[in-house]
């Protein structure tokens, strides 16, 4: 077995972080959590996750801007990012704006676990 795939979740909702972490761990991933935009890029640089799940509504930064920042940082630009949001208008535009921010995929909240796993696997096996 190769070592566990690492996923970094960036979300400001501690309860949700806890349950998603549990779900992802049940699928065999090693999970890291981060709750703010501040220091997020540094976290990504340190952890070097295989994939990032990024909430769009962070307290200090728009998730799309953070996504764009990550994608503009050469060492980590190839890490796939799934953006997630509970905001209605962003769910509708997620395809468009997500693409503009260079996100790889998007998922609305609340999400279906199967759908999330699908998206993760597809991006990791690319």
């Amino acid at each position: 077995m190769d070592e566990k795939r690492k996923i970094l979740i960036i979300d400001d909702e501690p309860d949700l972080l806890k349950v998603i972490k549990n779900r992802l761990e049940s699928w065999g991933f090693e999970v890291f959590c981060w709750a703010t935009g501040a220091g997020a890029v540094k976290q990504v640089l340190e952890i070097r996750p295989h994939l990032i799940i990024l909430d769009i509504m962070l307290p200090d930064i728009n998730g799309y801007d953070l996504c764009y920042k990550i994608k503009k940082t050469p060492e980590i630009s190839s890490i796939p990012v799934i953006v997630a949001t509970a905001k209605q208008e962003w769910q509708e535009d997620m395809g468009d704006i997500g693409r503009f921010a260079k996100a790889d995929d998007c998922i609305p909240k609340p999400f279906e676990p199967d759908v999330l796993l699908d998206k993760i696997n597809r991006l990791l096996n690319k």
Partner: protein
Amino acid sequence: MAQVKINIIIAGAGQKAKALLELLHSHNAIRILGVVDKDSSAIGIKYAQKLGIPTASDYQRFLSQNEVVEIIDLTESKDAREELGRLSNGNTKVIDSRTSIMEILLQELNNKTSELEKIRAELDIQSWGLQKTNEGIRTLYKELEKKNEELSKLDQLKSDFLSTVSHELRTPLATIKETVSQIRDGLLGPTTPRQQEFLTMCLENIERLGRIINNLLDLSKIEAGKTELKRKLTDIMGLVKRTCMTFSSRLSSKGLEIKITFPPEAIEVYLDEDKIIQVLNNLIGNSVKFTKQGFIGISVIDKGDFIECSVSDTGKGIREEDLERLFSKFQQFGQAVDPEEKGTGLGLAISKGIVELHRGKIWAESKLGQGTRFIFTLPKYNSRQVLKERIADSLRAGLRTQELISVLVFELSGFSALQEKLGRQKAGSFLNELARILEEGLSNRERIIVEADAMFSILKETTKAQALSLKDRLLSCGTEFLKKNGLDRETAIAWRVLNFPEDGSTVEQLCADL
């Protein structure tokens, strides 16, 4: 006005005489017979000559036996005075510039002054009125501005509220849903079958709550005029077929049949696929829900300018008095055949909103005990009409809060040829890619909206000149992009720049020659 004519001779032609001539020569109560001075080069003589008034070195030719002549004495020397004294008799008066003529002038002046005063008083009243009106207008303006500000704040608040509510409700819901499903899935330890049954029920209700939130927000957005259609040329029959497919398992498990009636020729309509699917899902879902046996009939009819879609069923029907209320919010009629399929009571209201956004109509016909038929129409707009309408909608929304707006329109000429060359899908994504590139040239807040085979951007607080220079910049980016893709021969980018209020003061005027 003075009626009397006074004949005068001006004696002496110095600086004073000149001034007097200037003052009197056009006065209609005074006739200047002449100017007398020994010095024929005096300044007053020259001036009199210029005015066409006779001049002389003595008085004889100006004096008359029959008429009264007044000699205005402006002479300086003693000799001249003496001479004037000798002239004075019954008809000839010598005055030293203070008597009757001055009276007349004074009288005149008085008249004029009182007239002037009257006029001034009137003007004062008028200007006072104007001032008041001005003040009134200014106050009104201020009030309008305030109201406008309040309205746009309210508008913003409303849409902020919507998105906040959606976010605030969904976030805990996401945690609850994920927690419950993890317990049910056994991630947190084993559960009994009975626990699992209850947890499943719980999840179904979470789903339902999610649906209600979604529907509520959909509807609020439609009502607030915040819903934007993403219209694409779509094969309507294909869309209906695909939607029907998603019902196949539910239909077969209920033993219901589906009957589809399509015209022989394919019909393509500009529509928002997701939204029309939402309408179809709703109508078909309702039919399935309320029908025990029989069939669901779906038809598409080409009516020339528009298409007519209908979904009919052999359910129990709706009472005539309920038909009107059908499309209102939170109206639920009758017991659904399947108790587990609880609706939100918002589906038809949303459907109505969506169809009307497409400028179509929706209604229902029903016979109690025989079934119900829902019909909606969609106009067959061409790409130009779709673009025009979309720009008009965006402008209308913008003009609610802005006083200066420019619209930038880009169009790919020969887009249909491009579609043939690349295929529709690829041509579409090419257009989107072009839009993305153009959007990078805009400031943060502005967006490019792709509609049919064109795209546009609503630029707030932008003058025509600013819009034109922005257009130049974007156009060169776009043209370069076409070249890079080797498509600059097939197609070119055409553009239009419209400005409010420069090019028109209403949305209709602005969009008229698009």
